C-alpha cells in the first residue's frame, strides 16, 4: 500500500512543481528528463548491478535520432520518441553482450570507451550531425497535431511529464516482474544465479536494452523540447553527472532517480545563480557531505532498503 502511495506521489509531485513554480517549467521538464535518464540507469546500476560510465551513449543516440528525424522532414514528436527509443535500445544489444562477462571496473571503462567512440563519431560526422556547432534546423511539429511547443514551456513540461510517467511505470513494472527479481539475483551473486538456471548473459543484455530504450526516449524528449542537439548529450560529463545524480538520490529504489535529479539539479541551479563562478565548490561540498551523512543517498535516509545490500 505505502509503495503504491509512494509511486503515486512520485508521479504527482511534478504537477505540484508546475503549479508552485510556473516560471521554471523549462527547468522542470529538464529535471524530468534527467530523472527518467537516472531511473533508466538505476535499472542497470541498482537492480542489475552493472556500473556504467557510458549511459550518455544511449541518451545521446536517442537525442540525435529524434533530432535527425525532425531535420529531415519528420517532426512528429511521439513517433520521434518511439523511433529514438528503438534505436537506443538496439544500441544496448552489442554493449550488453560486450560487458556481460566483465567485472565492475572493466565495465565502467568499456561503457565509457564506447560512449567516447560515439562522441567522436558524432563530432567527425559533421555533415550529418553538425558536429561541435550542433544539429540545427530542427522543425518539431505540434504535439498531437494541436499543441505547439510554447516559450514558457507549458507543453514541453506536459510532454516531458507524460514521457516520465510512462517510463517510470515501465521501469517499476520491470523491477517488480520476475525478470526484475532475476536481475537482483544476478546482482547479488552471478554464479549462484547461473546455478539456479538464470541465463545471466541474456538477462543482462535484456536489461541493457530496456534501460537504453528508456534513456533514448529521455534524450529524444530533450532534443525535441530544446530543438537543438549538441555533442554534450554524448559526453563523459553527462554520463558522470547522471551517475552522481542517481547515487545522490539513492540507487536500487526507482524513486531515487527523481529525488536525485530534483535535489541535485535544484541545488546546482540555485548555487550557480548565486555564484556563477564558484558554485562547483558548494556543490562539491554537498556531495562530500552526502557521502558521509547519507551514504545510501537521500532515499536511503527516508526509507532504508529492507534486506538489500548496497553494493
Amino acid at each position, binding site marked *: 500500500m505505502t509503495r503504491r502511495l509512494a509511486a503515486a506521489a512520485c508521479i504527482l509531485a511534478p504537477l505540484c512543481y508546475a503549479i508552485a513554480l510556473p516560471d521554471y517549467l523549462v527547468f522542470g521538464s529538464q529535471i524530468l528528463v534527467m530523472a527518467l535518464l537516472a531511473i533508466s540507469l538505476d535499472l542497470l*546500476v541498482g537492480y542489475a548491478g552493472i*556500473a556504467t560510465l557510458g549511459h550518455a551513449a544511449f541518451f545521446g543516440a536517442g537525442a540525435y535520432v529524434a533530432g535527425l528525424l525532425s531535420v529531415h522532414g519528420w517532426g512528429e514528436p511521439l513517433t520521434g520518441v518511439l523511433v529514438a527509443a528503438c534505436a537506443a535500445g538496439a544500441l544496448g544489444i552489442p554493449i550488453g553482450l*560486450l560487458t556481460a*562477462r*566483465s*567485472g*565492475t*571496473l*572493466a565495465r*565502467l*571503462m*568499456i561503457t*565509457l*570507451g*564506447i560512449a*567516447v*567512440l560515439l562522441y*567522436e563519431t558524432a563530432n*567527425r560526422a559533421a555533415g550529418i550531425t553538425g558536429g561541435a556547432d550542433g544539429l540545427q534546423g530542427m522543425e518539431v511539429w505540434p504535439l498531437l497535431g494541436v499543441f505547439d511547443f510554447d516559450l514558457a514551456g507549458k507543453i514541453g513540461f506536459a510532454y516531458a511529464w507524460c514521457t516520465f510517467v510512462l517510463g517510470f511505470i515501465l521501469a517499476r513494472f520491470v523491477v517488480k516482474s520476475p525478470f526484475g527479481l532475476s536481475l537482483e539475483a544476478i546482482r547479488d551473486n552471478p554464479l549462484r544465479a547461473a546455478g539456479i538456471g538464470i541465463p545471466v548473459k541474456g538477462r543482462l543484455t535484456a536489461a541493457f536494452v530496456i534501460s537504453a530504450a528508456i534513456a533514448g526516449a529521455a534524450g529524444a524528449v530533450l532534443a525535441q523540447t530544446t530543438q537543438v542537439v549538441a555533442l554534450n548529450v554524448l559526453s*563523459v*560529463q553527462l554520463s*558522470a553527472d547522471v*551517475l*552522481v545524480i542517481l*547515487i*545522490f538520490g539513492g*540507487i536500487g529504489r526507482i524513486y531515487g532517480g527523481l529525488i536525485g535529479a530534483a535535489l541535485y539539479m535544484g541545488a546546482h541551479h540555485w548555487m550557480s545563480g548565486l555564484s556563477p*563562478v*564558484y*558554485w*562547483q*565548490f558548494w*556543490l*562539491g*561540498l*554537498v*556531495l*562530500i*557531505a*552526502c*557521502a*558521509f551523512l547519507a*551514504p*545510501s543517498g537521500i532515499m536511503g535516509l527516508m526509507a532504508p532498503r529492507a534486506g538489500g545490500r*548496497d*553494493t
Partner: protein
Amino acid sequence: MQFIGVLLDGIAYASLLFIISAGLSITMGLMQFANLAHGAFAMVGGYACVYGMNALGIPYLAMLPLAFLIAGVFGLVLELALYRRLYEASHLTQVLFTVGVLNVSAASAVFLFGAGSQPIHLPPYLQGQISFLDANISTFRLFTVVLVVAMAVVLASIVQLTRFGAQLRCAVDNRRAAIGMGINVDRLMTIAFTFGSALAGLGGALGVQLLGLDPSFAFKYLVYFLLVVVVGGAGSFVGPLLAALIVGILDTASRYYAPETGSFTLYLLMVALLVMFPNGLYGRAR
C-alpha cells in the same frame, strides 16, 4: 629514422601517464577504493610547481621534489581526515565523495590561481632537442623518461625488497589474511596513499609542460588515469607500466602513421583489451 623518434616520444608520454597513475593503482588494488579524484593530487603538484617558480622564484629542479612533498602532505591529510572513513563504504558512495572532491578542487583552483591555463618557463637546459640514435627527441622528454625510470626502479625495489613492500603485496593479494597475520593494513594504506599522492604530484609538476595545467585538469585527464590502471590491472606497478607503455606508444604512433584515425585507435584498443582481459593485463580474477 622517424621510427625511433616516435617510439621515444611514446615512451615519454607513457612515463608521465605511469607516474601519475601508479598511486591510483595501489589504492584501487589495496582498498578497492574508487578514487576518481586522484588527478586532484597531480593538480596540487602542478600548481605548487608553477606558483613556486613564478611567484617565489624557486628553480624548476628544486620545485619537483617540493611538489612531490606538498602533494604527499595533501594526500596524508585528506587520507586521515576523510578518505579512510570511506574504505568500507560502497563503491558508489566513494564515487559520490570523490566527484565532490573533484568539484571542490576545480573551484578552489579557480579561486586561488584564476581560471585558464598556467604558464611555465622551463630552464634553458631542458629546452630544445638532442639527437639520439639518429632520431631527434626533445630534451625535456628525455629528462622525463630518465626521471620516471629512476622512480620506477625505486618503486620496484621498495615493493620487491623491503618489509613494507612485502606487507603491501600480501595485503593486495588477500587483505583479510594480511590483517589476520597482524599486518596493520590501515597504516599500510595511509603510507601507500600518501606516497601515491606524492607521485601524482611529481607527475603533475612534470606534466605542466606536456599536459598543461588548468582548473579542470583532474577531470580532463581522469579517463587516461583510469584507463592506464584498469587496462593494466589495479594493485600492481607492472600492470599500469605495461598499459601506460601500450597506450603511450600506440597513441603516439597512430597519430604519426594514421592521423586521420584521431582518438578512435586509443579507445578501440581500450575496449578490445578490456573485453579480452577483463581483469586487466596484469590483474587477477577476484
